[in-house]
Each structure stands twice: as structure tokens, then as C-alpha cells.
């Protein structure tokens, strides 16, 4: 009974859903503040993401007449649920995630595919012109970054010999030098994640000056609030996953590890924001050719490299 309560506590409070939501607001604020300060602006006050969320919650939800009502309502929740579920398999407090089993990395990767699909369906069933174009672009982008992302995240498992994120982290924490081998994959994964999060220079699906705001153009009020929340939670999930796989450095003390986790996420966020600051939006055909011509070969190179190392080290 106690263990069941403990599990509930972990799943819903810490490091589960509540922590995820709160931390997503924090990261959202830090991202916006960094973005603003790099552009020499003052930036928003700390409560801006919270204020935005509650303002949207309080607004009237309008559903277009031609839209599919059920899909329109359900998609934000699907998106949020997938992210929240995936977060349970990513270690936050120390090396161990709330749940883990061999193969949860694959589960997380599949959960990560859900938000773009949800956004695509939301856009498709809104039946707006801009929404349709945005939805098609989301799908196009999904197909091109998914391959390098999967390969680059699965490459480290070849050395560790496990498909569980927690065990992967534990292995690399024990052998920190091996983590350095995965640098090319880390590079590919970081850019693929930027692509997944639809942030500049890969914000083609929601390019506001071209297609207004892409797939979610018809959304407003509470439903949009949940989509935005799912999006910032996705940011936390992606950053945590990255730090678990590619920066698995641990001290061994739970509290210190948690602080280290915060530091790691902030550093990754800085990199992602810097990327967002310093580039212009790519066209969809450039995104496709970049992902296939640069990211996929880098990720594949990592796989070959790791196989060779594994063979030579006889792990």
C-alpha cells in the first residue's frame, strides 16, 4: 500500500506531472528571458508564462464550424498526456526514473512522436487553409528529423548494451569517458530536438509571417493553453532526455544530482536558445535536405563508430 502511494506520489507530484508542469513554466520563462536578453531587450517578468497560461484558460474557446469537434477538443490532451507519460521514464532524481524497464527508451521515443502527430491532426481537422499547410509541414518535418533522432539516441545504447534509459545513465555515470565518444550523436540529437520542438531555425511549421501560426491557427482559449503547456513540457522532456543520455555525469548524492540535473538542463537550454537566436528560419526543402544530408550521416557515423568500439573493447 505504502509503495503504491509512493508510486502515485512519484507519478503525479515529484518528479512526475506536477514537477514537470512547474519546471516547464520555469524553463519557458528562462528561455524567453535569455532570448530577450540576447536580443538586447528587457524580456518578460518571471510570472509571464503563468499569467499567459491563466489568461488563455479564462478565454472563450471557439471551435470552427467545419472542424471535427471531437478531434479538435481531444488533441491538446493527447499531446499533454503523451509528454507527461514519457517523462516518467526519464531519470530526474539521480540515476533512476520513476518507472523503468529494458526498452523504455523506445517507448519514450514513440511518446515523443505523439505531440507532432497530435498537432498535425489538430491542424488537419481544423480545416483551415493555413492550418492545413502547417499540418502538412509538421508531417514533412516529422519524417525527416525522426530518423537522425532515433539513430543518434540509439547509438549510445550500443556501448551500454541496454535499452533502458535509467540503466543507460547508470552505465555512463560509471564510465564517464565513454560518454565523450557520443559527441557526434549528441550534436545530431541536439539539432533534431530543436527541429522537434519547432524552434527557429526549424520553426517552418508555425512560421508566423507565412502561415500565421500553422496548424494551431484555429485554436484559442483553454485548448490552446493545453497545447502551449504540452509544448513547454515537451521542452523539459527533451532536455531531460538529452541530459540523461548524453550528459550522464553523477555525483552519487541524490540532492547534488538533482542540482546537477538543473544545471545540465539550463546549459542545454542555453544552447537551444542560442541556436534559436542566431539563425533565420529555414525553408521546408532546406530542412529536408539538411536533415538527410547532414544529420542522418552524422548519426549513422556514430552507430558505426560505436559498433567498432564495442567490438574492439569486447563489452
Amino acid at each position, binding site marked *: 500500500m505504502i509503495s503504491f502511494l509512493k508510486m502515485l506520489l512519484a507519478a503525479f507530484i515529484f518528479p512526475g506531472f506536477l514537477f514537470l508542469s512547474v519546471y516547464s513554466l520555469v524553463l519557458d520563462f528562462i528561455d524567453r528571458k535569455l532570448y530577450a536578453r540576447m536580443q538586447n531587450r528587457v524580456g518578460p517578468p518571471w510570472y509571464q508564462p503563468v499569467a499567459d497560461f491563466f489568461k488563455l484558460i479564462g478565454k472563450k474557446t471557439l471551435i470552427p464550424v467545419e472542424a471535427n469537434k471531437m478531434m479538435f477538443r481531444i488533441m491538446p490532451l493527447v499531446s499533454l498526456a503523451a509528454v507527461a507519460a514519457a517523462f516518467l521514464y526519464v531519470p530526474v532524481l539521480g540515476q533512476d526514473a520513476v518507472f523503468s524497464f529494458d526498452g523504455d527508451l523506445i517507448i519514450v521515443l514513440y511518446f515523443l512522436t505523439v505531440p507532432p502527430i497530435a498537432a498535425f491532426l489538430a491542424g488537419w481537422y481544423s480545416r483551415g487553409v493555413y492550418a492545413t499547410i502547417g499540418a502538412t509541414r509538421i508531417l514533412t518535418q516529422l519524417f525527416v528529423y525522426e530518423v537522425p533522432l532515433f539513430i543518434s539516441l540509439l547509438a549510445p545504447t550500443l556501448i551500454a548494451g541496454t535499452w533502458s534509459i535509467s540503466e543507460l545513465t547508470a552505465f555512463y555515470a560509471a564510465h564517464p569517458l565513454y560518454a565523450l565518444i557520443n559527441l557526434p550523436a549528441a550534436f545530431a540529437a541536439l539539432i533534431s530536438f530543436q527541429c522537434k520542438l519547432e524552434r527557429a*531555425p526549424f520553426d517552418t511549421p508555425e512560421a508566423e*509571417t507565412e502561415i500565421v501560426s500553422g496548424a494551431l491557427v484555429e485554436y484559442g482559449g483553454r485548448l490552446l493553453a493545453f497545447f502551449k503547456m504540452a509544448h513547454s513540457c515537451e521542452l523539459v522532456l527533451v532536455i531531460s532526455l538529452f541530459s540523461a543520455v548524453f550528459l550522464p555525469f553523477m555525483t552519487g548524492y541524490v540532492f547534488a544530482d538533482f542540482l546537477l540535473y538543473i544545471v545540465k538542463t539550463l546549459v542545454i537550454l542555453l544552447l537551444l536558445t542560442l541556436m534559436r537566436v542566431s539563425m533565420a528560419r529555414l*525553408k521546408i526543402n532546406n530542412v529536408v535536405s539538411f536533415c538527410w544530408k547532414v544529420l542522418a550521416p552524422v548519426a549513422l557515423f556514430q552507430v558505426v563508430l560505436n559498433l567498432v568500439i564495442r567490438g574492439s573493447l569486447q563489452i
Partner: protein
Amino acid sequence: MHSDNRITIPIGPQHPSLDEPGRFDITLEGEKVVNAVIGVGYNHRGLEKTCESKTYVQNLYIIERVCGICSHAHGTAFCMAIEQLAGVTIPKRAEYIRAVVAELERLHSHLLWLGVACHEIGFDTMFMYTWRNREKVLDILADLGGNRVNYGVNTIGGVRRDIDADMVETIRKALDALEEETKHYVEIAYTETTLISRLKGVGVLSHEDAIRYGAVGPVARAAGIAHDVRVDEPYGAYKEIPVKVITDTHADVYGRTVVRILEMQESINIIRFCLDNLPDGPLSVRVPRRIPAGETIIRVEAPRGENIHYLRSNGSDIPDRVRVRAPTEANWHGMKHMLEGGYLADVPITIAAIDPCYSCTDRAIVVKSGAKTDCYDWRGLRQYGIDWYKKRGIDVTALKV
């Protein structure tokens, strides 16, 4: 909306990438633009008619507000037209001050454009940086003219504001800082891959097409046409100021960007020359309120291209006819050609690349649909509106205002 596998999307009248209302019906095949229908006319202000009912002095401020960005160029053209009809020569100092303000205006207009263009291609950092630097120019203009955009420096027969020694120093200091920044922009424009990939080969208007469609300003100069009123037909202080015409051979949006950035450097040089050679003397001469009858055409190089003002006087203190041709009007004609064959992602930047000013351009137009022409007078238009709403169950006349 859907026919075959083509899809028509409306850009505008309200759209995040348009600064002013204008309508572009873009027919897409996939992401490729196969047809573009351009509709302007959402911003008609009846400005020429207004000018015909007010005195010359009052018209100064109306003409200045033709365009928020090239306000000084329009004001200068109008003043020059009046001065030519009245047969007065304005003092040298006034001519130089007009040139300084004109070049400062070019600087701020090009910085503004660079920011807008970067925003259109999703490069918001550049957008913020350029607009931050634009503030430096605007601060000078606010101090010199008294306002941030409609400076009101021109008056009939000269200028209203003087540049004193303190201000010369402030301007020089700001120019030095700006020159550094401009060099940075040049470097970014030449080296940033994402920027180049978004701009090169986009919205091409070749040398021949630019001549055929009558493009002016940076659009023409980017296609290698060395056309600049300041050089072709020097007016005011430009008769003495050496102006280098910046041209480029890319003939696309990238070329227009490069031309504008290099023109900023040239403007800085011109302002420095003016400040070095600022002649002494009075600021203005008296011009009678009643302007002798006659007509004239004046050309002035605005930041966006060639401004043409036509003025006809009948001897009273109210003009008989005023015609303003803003540079955007000349550049619209090539727009369809530039958009077609491109991609949807290129549409906003292609539109933005001519630095369009919708309200400067909009005059009364007669829309012809087939052979039938619909023309309404004011009363008819009002009745049409009332009927239109009545059909939809709203009685406008019953509403209390």
C-alpha cells in the same frame, strides 16, 4: 478553395507579415506559387482631394503624412514644387539641412526595412538589433526635427530647424557608432548561411524585367540599373554632394538587401560631407501665400525609390491639383512576376523586399469586372452598405451610435 490539387490561400487583408492591409491571393501547387493576384486599395485616404481643399501651408503637413517613413522626401518634393512655381531660390544652408535630414531618413528607412525583412524570414535577433540601432537615428531626427517620424523640417522657402554646433557633434558621434554596426551587417549579409539561403534567388526581377515593369529605387539598382535621381537629375544640395550609386547584379532579394546595406554606408558618408561643408546663412526665404498659376513636376529620390510630385496652381493659396506618385506604385507592377514560380515561404519576403507602402500608393481606382463597371457616389455607397447588412439581417440604420 480546392480545385485539382491546387489550393488558393489568401494573404491579407489582415496577415502577420503585412504591415498594412493589402490582399494577395496566392494559388499554390504543393508549396509552389503558380498564380498570384494582387489587390491593393484597402488604404485609400482621399489624400490628393484633401490637398485641393487646404492651403499650401496646411498641405505641407498632409503631404508629409503620405508616408510615415519617407515623410521628408515627400515634403521636400512638395516644397520644391511650390518654390519652383513661386520662382524663389532657397538658401544654401536650407538645402544642406534638407539633404542631411533626407539621408538620415534613408538610414532609418533602410534599417527599418532590414529589420522587417529579417523578421519575415524568421531572423528576429537581427530584427531587434537593427531596430535598436534605428533608435539612434530616430533620436537625432527627434532632436533635429522635433518628432520621431514626421519631422516637419521643411517649410515653403526653406527649413524650420537649424543644426547647431552641438548637434553636429551628436550626429557625428552617432554616425561613428552606426558605421561600426553597418559593417557588422555587411559581414552578416555576406556570411550567414541561413540568411543567404533564404534570400538568394528569391523574387528575381532581372535587368530586362526591371526595365519592362518600370521598377525604381533599390529594386532597380539591385538589377544593375544605375538609376538614382540624386545623380541623374540632381536637386538641392545634391548638385554639390558626390553621390555614389550603389548597384548589384543579383537581381533578387539578396541583391536588394546588399544594395540597401551599402546605401546606408553611402548615406553616412553623405551626411559627413554635408556636416563638413554646412554653409552659413539664413534658414528660409519668404514665399507669398498665393502661388502664381502654373504646373510643375518634381522628382526626388526617397529611400524606396523615385518620388514624383505634380502640382498645378491657379494663382490662389489653394492648389488646383496635387498628384503624388510614391515609389511603391512603380514597384507593384513587377510583383506578380516576382511571386510566381517561387515558394510559399518566399512570398512574405518577396513582398517585403520592395519595401511596400500600401497607403502611399492607394488612390481612387475603378475596378472593372468584364465589361460592366460599378461606380458609386457617396450616397449610393452608403445605401449599398445598408442593403448589404439588411440582407444579412442587420439593420444598421436602427443602431444607435
